[in-house]
């Protein structure tokens, strides 16, 4: 019998992976404790790993070490994040929760500002300009693209954008003798936009299925490979 050409760590890791994979596959029989064990292990390991990484990769080198060995100016500047971090920990206690509102406000404010600025400058303005530029037939011709296809492509995109926006328009005019409903022309556009939305959702679903299928393929191939590796000494 030839020992498998695997290191001990790899062998143990393989077995653990196999065991956890089989635990996840047990969901085919329905929700059971084996599946929950695997899920709990995954969540716990992920949380622990994230905490360790955050401490060793952020808090220790960027807060603690500079406070201990950094310059005076650096230390004074680091007092601000230190105090805010301590105040944020007050959120754990209901009595002291309001002390963490300052830190939360800072985080929420910065996050909102970054998100809003990025959305505006990184998505809305460029995408609107790009939608307009779809009808820049001269640039498309210079790029070597067919003007017709460029025009059709632009038109489809434009129609899709407008109808999709019309689908999400819910403003109605109130009438006393009639139920509130959107104008008819907006209603027609919304129906077309629904088609584009449905196509987009279909694409998204295909992508999600592809990703999940790849995960399944990878796990099945892992099982096959590990079993083959384990059994190879016994087979050969």
């Amino acid at each position: 019998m030839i020992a498998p050409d695997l290191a001990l760590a790899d062998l143990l890791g393989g077995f653990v992976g196999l065991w956890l994979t089989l635990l996840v596959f047990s969901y085919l029989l329905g929700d059971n404790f084996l599946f929950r064990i695997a899920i709990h292990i995954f969540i716990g390991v992920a949380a622990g790993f994230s905490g360790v990484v955050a401490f060793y990769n952020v808090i220790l080198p960027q807060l603690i070490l500079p406070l201990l060995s950094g310059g005076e100016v650096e230390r004074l500047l680091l007092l601000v994040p230190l105090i805010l971090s301590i105040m944020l920990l007050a959120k754990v206690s209901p009595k002291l929760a309001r002390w963490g509102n300052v830190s939360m406000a800072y985080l929420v404010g910065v996050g909102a500002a970054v998100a809003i600025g990025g959305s505006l400058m990184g998505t809305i303005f460029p995408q609107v300009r790009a939608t307009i530029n779809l009808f820049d037939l001269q640039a498309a011709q210079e790029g070597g693209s067919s003007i017709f296809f460029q025009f059709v492509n632009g038109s489809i995109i434009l129609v899709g954008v407008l109808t999709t926006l019309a689908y999400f328009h819910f403003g109605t005019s109130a009438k006393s003798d009639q139920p509130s409903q959107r104008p008819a022309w907006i209603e027609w556009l919304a129906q077309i936009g629904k088609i584009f939305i449905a196509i987009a959702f279909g694409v998204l679903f295909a992508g999600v299925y592809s990703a999940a299928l790849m995960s399944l393929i990878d796990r099945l191939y892992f099982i096959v490979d590990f079993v083959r590796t384990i059994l190879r000494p016994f087979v050969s």
Partner: protein
Amino acid sequence: MPDIRCPMCGKENPADLDSCQFCQARLKPVIGQPPPEESKDIPSEEIPLEKNDRQPDSDLPDWLKEIRSGEDEIRDFPEKSDESTEWLSSLRDENGVDAESEDEDLSDQTQDFEFPTDTDHLPEWLESLRSPGDTGEGSLEEQEEDPDWLDRIRRRKEEDERIAYQASFDEAEDRAETIPESSKYEAEQAEQETRLPADDFEEVESTFEPTDVISQQGEEELSESGFWLEDETLFPADDLDQEIVSPEVPAFDEDELLVEASGADPDWMRRLQEDASAAVDDEAVTRNFDEFTEEPPEEIDESPDALPDWLADEEGAPETPQPESEEMPDWLAESRTDETSTPSKEEGEQPDVLPDWISEEEGTTEASPPESEEVPDWLAESISDQTPPQPAAEDQSEAAPGDIQAGEVPDWLLGYRDSPDTVQSEEEIAELPSEKGPDLPLAEDVEILPLQEEELAEDLGLEVEEEQQLDEERTDSDLTPADLPAWLEAMRPIESETPRGRDVGVDIVEGAGPLAGLSGVLAAETNIPRSLKDSAYAPRLQVTTEQRAHVDLLEEMIAGEGKARPIPKQSVISPQNVLRWAISLVLFIAILWPAITAERQTPLPAISQETGDVSSLINDLPADARLLVAFDYQPGLSAEMDTIAAAVLDHIMLRGAYLTLVSTSPTGPFVAERFLSQTQSTHDYTHGEEYINMGYIPGGAAGLLSLAASPQRTIPYTTDGVEAWEVSGHDALPPLQGVGSLADFSMVLALVDDPDVARAWIEQVQPYLAASDAETPLVMVVSAQSEPLIRPYYEAFPQQLQGFVAGMRGGASYARLTGRTSPPTRYWDAFSAGLSVAALLIIVGGGVNVASMLVSRRKPFVDKDQT
């Protein structure tokens, strides 16, 4: 036409007026209608009728006829045109009173009214009141205004009885001296206010009983009961000297009454007192006699001699000899001296401020209420004679002062009873109308409400405690209880339990207002009877059986709302489970078949535009290019991402580029290390030489912005804690040599599975890259699920994303470009089989659903057709 003197205020008014212009009192009395039925009983409520309106004389009792005959004589009062005052005028004429005298009050005129003295016309019950020896002629009044008939009454009294009353009167005078001025003033004001006009005399009369000592209300009453007033014992002649007062005068202040009565007691009242024996029981009289404690409304004579004897007797204390005033009649003075000669127990005691009938009500709570001395002997005797013996001696001991003990009949009353003229059957006595009402409780049963008591005290201007103190000081008088006549005994109220609630007119003695001093009147607002508090009981709601069942059901539903419902156990083998197993089996077979057979039958996909751009960019990298690679995907999707990124990173590493690894996910550094060790092991990249792992960038999009703005401050150290950037005295690591910002990198490659993270890289980092002169390209490797959301950035003009490799299809196509064996080529057959099986299952399942829907729709139509 001469003016009419107002009976209330005494002021002159024109004769043509019906009401006084000063006090609005009625000048001309209203003449009422005679009763519909004849009655021989004495209608005490009646007022003198007009001559034309009254009954024929033949139907009237004799005494009434006699009165009317007298009225006719005195009706010719020249000064009064009103017929109702004719009788008064006649009285004045008879007595020689100047009718035009403006200084005389009507009460004075009333005093001149001469009652018929013919005893033959007196009823038997009235005659029985006469003491033996009375001739019906009163003694001469000491005062000049005494009418003859009163004088006759007075003369009947014995001297010893006069002494007894005198003694009590003296005591009352002493008490009167202690009366504060305010109480006297109040009494005076009360008199003035309560002077009834002539037409209200009827109302006042209703409160009187025939046996009651007559009040000095008005001439009408005097005219009605004139015959029985002949009895000197009842109405001493001296009483008439006093001004007629209304019964509303607050009689609670005994001293006040004494003072008021000093100059206002009618002589006839005093006469009655004289006849009482000195040994009459001093227990307070019943409230039947309260009405006789009225005092003149105006004149409050402070002379100690003004207290009537009967009132003095109620005080229960012998009166000290009073200096005679100008108005003190001789008979009264004599009576007083006689009284003082009789030692009494109460000698030296302070006179009570309150009259006896008040002290009666208060004395019920006292331990030993003193025996009243204020009870007139004549009355005490009458009560004792008429009423049956007390059931228990305790009642007698608790009796308030003034009560006449049962069996005790005054001597003078005994005399009347024995005389043949005064014999009266008990039936006749019982027929006598009672103005008071039925069965008044004895004085000992009378209670004075605390509020009433306080009112009395307020009227008197004394504290309640003082009153109680005075009440306690009362002791038994030296008067012997008199024997009550039979008729009076029958009228005596039956002792009964003091009602909890206040019966109307039983225990109430009016304390203020026009009916002050009167008992048996309707309670005032402050004397509202206490209503019995209903016994508390819990109301029960009647609930039927059905309602109870509904209530129980509702309670169970509410109680079970918080309880978790047990999940019904489902069988392992179910249609859903079978379908799931079937689908899984098909997929497993489709996926494992290529893995088992190791055959590659599915061609690799065509190369897309975006994949070609990535390949072109990588091919255009210079030698020793520095690339920033971000591993921002989760370990759960590492199978797809590793497969896709393996071809790209292989291509990059083949170009010999240095890699700086970063991640905005905490697991990113670990995922990066694993990726390089498993997929790129053939390139022998060493950490710190060919690549460095800068670790985790916190803050999400903010971290990316910070990285784009200042990467040295954002990621200063590697995962090993080594300073990676070039600082003073330290060279940068090889992957970061010559790199000061993101724009210094040759390419930025982001491996992202989440479309939001990919959008964050594009929004935060791409502007900094586009602004640089180098125009560092941003390239992404994304999951298949993020491709629809990332493509617009690639399709945009100007491009925000210079290329991307999406999903297994992109990885396989990139592998086709490089021509290298990589994981995407291995998994492509299985991936294709899996996609085919999925598409086939979706089509078949959809078709089955549509068919079932069509079948289900046809059934109702078929049923309708068949029917």
